[in-house]
């Protein structure tokens, strides 16, 4: 049977989330998991992921192996020579992990509620007046490492080599941005994009292309904080702008 393209697969963050959902939906008693059934459903899910060409993370595969191992252990008769410790239900570890995982999911929800409540109050909104010099930021260790990495990544000195002029057009650059963003909804780092085009002309063309895309609302540039990295993301007009022929027209305007 061919999979219709409209079929949507649930997205689980990890194997434990998937297992919990299977258990919950079927109202299974977690202390008596029908392993054969759950393993089969778990494998079915991975199989569907495969059919949809979704990359399966290693964590999911590892859990599949664990489930199969537990299942096989349950089929064996109990070892009469094993100590009472070893005669434990082979599912025990898994149940413990699931419960532990669920526990922290609940804790996360509690935190979220606390945070929403806290957001409704204000404290010292004018702290800026007491802050240090303008342009100074409160820094943490994380900022320190981040900055060091950026410093190291900086091109040391302009190389004294003659560089052949590259003939990039704005349309080609827009194409490149489209290719980068098309595949997923993940943002792309502007810094990363700039590094691909280290020459002056490359950067100028890239900049023009981005201005154009932002103006057309095909792309949106986001920054989470002052000095924070700029990220590019698909915007609402993305598909319209990248309909065939639009890019060529734009390029003609830049010639």
């Amino acid at each position, binding site marked *: 049977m061919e999979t219709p393209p409209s*079929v*949507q*697969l*649930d997205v689980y*963050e*990890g*194997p*434990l*989330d998937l297992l*919990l*959902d299977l*258990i*919950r*939906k079927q*109202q*299974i*008693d*977690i202390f008596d998991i029908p392993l054969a059934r759950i393993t089969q*459903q778990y494998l079915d*899910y991975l199989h*569907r992921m495969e059919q949809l060409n979704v990359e399966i*993370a290693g*964590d999911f595969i590892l859990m599949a192996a664990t489930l199969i191992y537990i299942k096989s252990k349950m089929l064996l008769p109990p070892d009469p020579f094993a100590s009472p410790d070893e005669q434990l239900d082979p599912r025990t570890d898994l149940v413990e*992990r*699931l*419960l*532990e*995982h*669920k*526990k*922290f*999911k*609940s*804790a*996360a*929800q*509690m*935190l*979220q509620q*606390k*945070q929403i*409540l*806290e*957001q*409704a*109050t*204000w*404290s*010292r*909104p*004018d*702290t*800026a007046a*007491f802050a240090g010099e303008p342009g100074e930021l409160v820094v*943490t*260790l*994380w900022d320190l490492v981040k900055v060091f990495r950026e410093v190291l990544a900086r091109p040391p000195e302009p190389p004294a080599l003659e560089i052949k002029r590259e003939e990039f057009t704005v349309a080609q650059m827009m194409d490149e941005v489209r290719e980068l963003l098309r595949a997923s909804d993940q943002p792309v780092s502007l810094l990363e994009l700039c590094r691909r085009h280290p020459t002056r002309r490359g950067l100028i063309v890239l900049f023009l292309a981005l201005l154009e895309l932002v103006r057309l609302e095909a792309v949106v540039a986001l920054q*989470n*904080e002052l000095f*924070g990295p700029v990220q590019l993301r698909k915007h609402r007009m993305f598909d319209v702008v990248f309909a065939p022929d639009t890019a060529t027209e734009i390029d003609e305007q830049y010639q």
Partner: protein
Amino acid sequence: MDRAALKALLEAIIYVSEEPITIAQLEKVLADVSKDELRGALEALLEASRAPERGVEIRQVAGGYRMYTKPEHHEAVRRFVRSQKPPLRLSLPALETLAVIAYKQPVTTPEIKAVRGVDPSSALATLLEKGLVVTAGRKQCIGRPILYRTAKEFLIRFGLKDVGELPTLEEFEELARASLGEPEPAPAAGSEPARESREEAAEPGNA
């Protein structure tokens, strides 16, 4: 100094303090006031600030005292705050990672992974970036992995006096057992929005 004057002075100091101010800091500034007097006046001040005709109350947060507007004025107040702190938007994975760190701190990446079942690196980077989590040295074991703990900003953003104020894990354990242990007809609806929406999509998958 009489009680009224002490209360007034405490209010003034808490008002100007940039960060939640601790008892220890107050004791240091008010060296000539006895600890009992100080605590008494502070209690009275907190109590008075909770009165219905007061719009700014003093609360205990992140190990100190700080002024806050009351939640019930949220709507009207929001229109006057120009420099709003950017709202803290955390993804569910980031929140879950934060929860693990909050309860197990100090904790390493592999330990977080064991609980969550997925690599927490991306969520961890977000939390470090937002200053909710900081590094806390290295664990003395093979590989000397970095330890993480929650930062003061975490307590402030979540309105907590200290991490001890969080509900105990046993309470969540009961919750987990209740929602997964016995087959339940309707799992707590409102509390799990992420899951609810997922469920709809999941149905065709089981067919």
